[in-house]
């Protein structure tokens, strides 16, 4: 469970008490030069090779044949596999701690139009769910506000660090829940007509907001002094095409309407959700918009749909020419991302594409194709070392490096295992 090294470091450096449950990890994160020796390296972008990876100053500085600097920590990876850290394209990790306890849920602010609220502000670097997530090989996630038309601004974060700034990975997007005429849930008793009417009203509201945002951006460009409008301010960079809009649309009609809206308004957009993407693959491919989809392990969108539609949706889109990123759409169980990718792979996407969908595709869609998502010289050292295929359920993640930090493979879940596998006292008093 624990790596001997961490235990030694713990005893050498930490005054913490073992039984303290408030601790997320016992070992410390370590920065420095590391040589990951003699592994099978899955670069994602440049094929597989056998060799070593050198990490220096938080970056990958050599891949393959590596000259070991004298100061470097050596990590023996014989028989192991090196992959880029997995990236989840949509979560509420760090925003929601215990979803049924509303005061621990920071994902959904009041108001329909709050694009200025920042997930990066509310993300809790000490959330118990963060170590639980990264020990499964996920190093980077989008964490996003939810609820309302413009729920707020999502951020890409690395899962290491004690402040949001330490975690921030260099990408933000403004969220838009595209107006929908679908049922909100199984208890939604509104008639089809009412749903359409309300959907139409929401589209009008969206267009009004967009008009105002354009005007607002225009005024600012002309050097006009405007009133304090934090919500419209947040849309200025979107109107200018600098910040993308992440548009959630799931029902067929809603996806098509979203594509049309994006084209008409010339917005830099990323689609998300698209649970009925398989019905409109050609339109998605023609639009050339990337799609963040998932989870796979969810019900088919309609009662009439084939039982495996949700499993196969990502593959159908990706085979149809859509650039696909996979997400878990989870908070406490983002750790299932590799299994989501595994299901997508099995149901038509293929292993290679599924691996891209949680690494390089995500990096590219977030404009960080030269920073993240593959094992290449110069990239940020987000690396996992496993004893096998990272999607395969039984695979163990042996070492984790995030932003160059070596992070212990510990979480509350592993600590509880260590304490209770052989409880002491057992049955004795």
């Amino acid at each position, binding site marked *: 469970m624990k790596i001997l090294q961490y235990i030694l470091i713990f005893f050498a450096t930490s005054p913490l008490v073992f039984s303290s449950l408030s601790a997320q990890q016992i070992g410390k994160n370590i920065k420095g030069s590391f040589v990951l020796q003699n592994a099978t390296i899955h670069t994602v972008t440049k094929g597989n090779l056998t060799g070593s990876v050198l990490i220096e100053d938080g970056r990958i500085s050599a891949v393959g044949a590596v000259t070991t600097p004298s100061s470097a920590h050596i990590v023996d990876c014989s028989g192991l596999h090196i992959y880029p850290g997995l990236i989840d394209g949509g979560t509420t990790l760090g925003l929601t701690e215990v979803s049924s306890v509303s005061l621990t849920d920071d994902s959904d602010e009041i108001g329909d139009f709050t694009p200025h609220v920042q997930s990066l502000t509310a993300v809790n670097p000490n959330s118990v769910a963060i170590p639980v997530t990264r020990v499964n090989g996920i190093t980077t996630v989008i964490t996003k506000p939810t609820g309302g038309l413009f729920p707020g601004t999502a951020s890409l974060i690395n899962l290491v660090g004690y402040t949001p700034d330490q975690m921030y990975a260099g990408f933000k997007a403004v969220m838009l829940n595209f107006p929908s005429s679908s049922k909100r*849930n199984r208890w939604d008793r509104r008639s089809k007509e009412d749903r359409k009417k309300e959907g139409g009203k929401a589209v009008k509201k969206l267009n009004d907001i967009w008009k105002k945002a354009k005007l607002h951006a225009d005024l600012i460009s002309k050097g006009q002094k405007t009133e304090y409008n934090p919500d419209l301010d947040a849309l200025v960079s979107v109107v200018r095409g600098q910040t993308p809009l992440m548009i959630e649309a799931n029902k067929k009609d809603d996806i098509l309407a979203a594509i049309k809206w994006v084209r008409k308004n010339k917005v830099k957009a990323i689609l998300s959700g698209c649970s009925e993407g398989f019905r409109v693959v050609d339109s998605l491919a023609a639009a050339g918009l990337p799609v963040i989809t998932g989870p796979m392990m969810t019900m088919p969108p309609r009662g009439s749909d084939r039982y495996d539609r949700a499993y196969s949706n990502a593959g159908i889109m990706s085979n149809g020419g859509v650039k696909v990123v996979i997400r878990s759409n989870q908070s406490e169980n983002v750790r299932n991302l590799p299994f989501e990718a595994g299901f997508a792979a099995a149901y038509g996407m293929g292993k290679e594409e599924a691996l891209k969908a949680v690494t390089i595709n995500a990096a590219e869609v977030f404009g960080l194709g030269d920073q993240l998502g593959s094992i290449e010289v110069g990239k940020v050292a987000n690396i996992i070392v496993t004893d096998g295929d990272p999607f395969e359920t039984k695979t163990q993640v042996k070492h984790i490096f995030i932003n160059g930090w070596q992070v212990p493979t510990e979480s509350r879940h592993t600590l509880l295992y260590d304490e209770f596998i052989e409880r002491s006292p057992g049955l004795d008093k």
Partner: protein
Amino acid sequence: MKFIIKIFILLFIPISLSAQESGNILIKNGTVLTITNGVLKNTDVLIQNGKIQQIGPNLRASSNTKTIDATGQYVMPGIIDAHSHIGIDAVNEATNPVTAEVNVGDAINPMAVSIYRALAGGVSVSHAMHGSANAIGGQCETIKHRYGTWDPEEIRMKGAPRTIKFALGENPMRVHGERRGLQPKTRMGVEQIFRSAFSEAKRYMDAQKMHKQSMGNKSYKGIAPKYNERLEVLADILRGEIIVHCHSYRADEIYMLLQVLEDFGITKICFQHVNEGFKVAPELAAYGAGASVFADWWAYKFEVYYSTAYNATILTRNGVLTSINSDSGELIRHLYHEAAKTQRYGGLSDNEALKLITINPAKQLGIGNRVGSLEVGKDGDVAIFSAHPLSVYTIPQMTIVDGIIRFDVENDDNDMRLAIDPEEEMSSFFDHQNEKNHDKCMEGVAEQLFQFSAHNH
């Protein structure tokens, strides 16, 4: 018009798949995961009249027996889910902390498409449970996934022992204490609900016994105690005729119920969810209690915040009879994958992991002598997978119940519903992305008591 024709065709499916019907099938040349007798390569399984007749190499069958080539595939017993709510139209009778008299078996819906979707994940038997709104909820029904019938009787697993749902912690406290101002509002109150219910049942039994004994006495003028169905069911629990399945999360409440059960001499107990079971694993093992757990659900409510995905492994290693359940119409479709998670979280062996979804839940439901392993004489319930069922890349190929193929990936239609809402021209889309899917145990309560709240588990 097309739609009407479809309904017309659907109307006749049940006739062609008469449900209690049992079949003959020879499954050739698969890798057979028997669960109780190791892994047999290149082995055949012969099912006759719905029962496993023979397991071995090069078996032959009569010419009218359907033969399936399972070369390169994995053949395992039909998966069993010890906790689900599919195939029933009512889950919670949330009107009293004790509702032992109700039975979800009176609300079976054999047309639920969720049964088909469970079959498409290799699941042949599930335990359709009452919800967790009440400390003593209703009786549950063990169902066989004979999808195709319209007759509720045909879905019941006849002869399966009676079971009942109990619930501890937040759910009964919230429904009765918080919302209605009735005991229980605390875990102290929950204990007293059980002690009071069983004490009353004991008095009821004593009164009945006294009356029966006195009947022989000619001078006896007494009348029989007033019949009470609730107390009758509780008395059956005390007599050991009903297996208790108790929704629970925290270690203290689990320990509390063990004390209560011991005081009343109740031994047949399987804890459900039991997220903190790992903390009292030695006590559970000593009592002989079962534990039916989630693979990795946690943190969706406060009483599951101190959970670990290593729960199933710790329980197994401490000698507790453990299973992995779904409690969800979604999760039931990939229980094989949920079981595999015990290999990531604790390194269980292949057979240990597979037992969690086969023979162990069968034993917890009291049907371990009939299903849960591939053995001669057992029911012909079989699931066939493209790759090892614990691999993330496996795809269920076929699910057989009593020797009848109920799911076949090669002959799988898009729309497998048996019942269609006549008011909708197409089944409607609803946004699963907004749905929190945990713990269907509180289904129905949301509508009855809270209107709709997303956090209703």
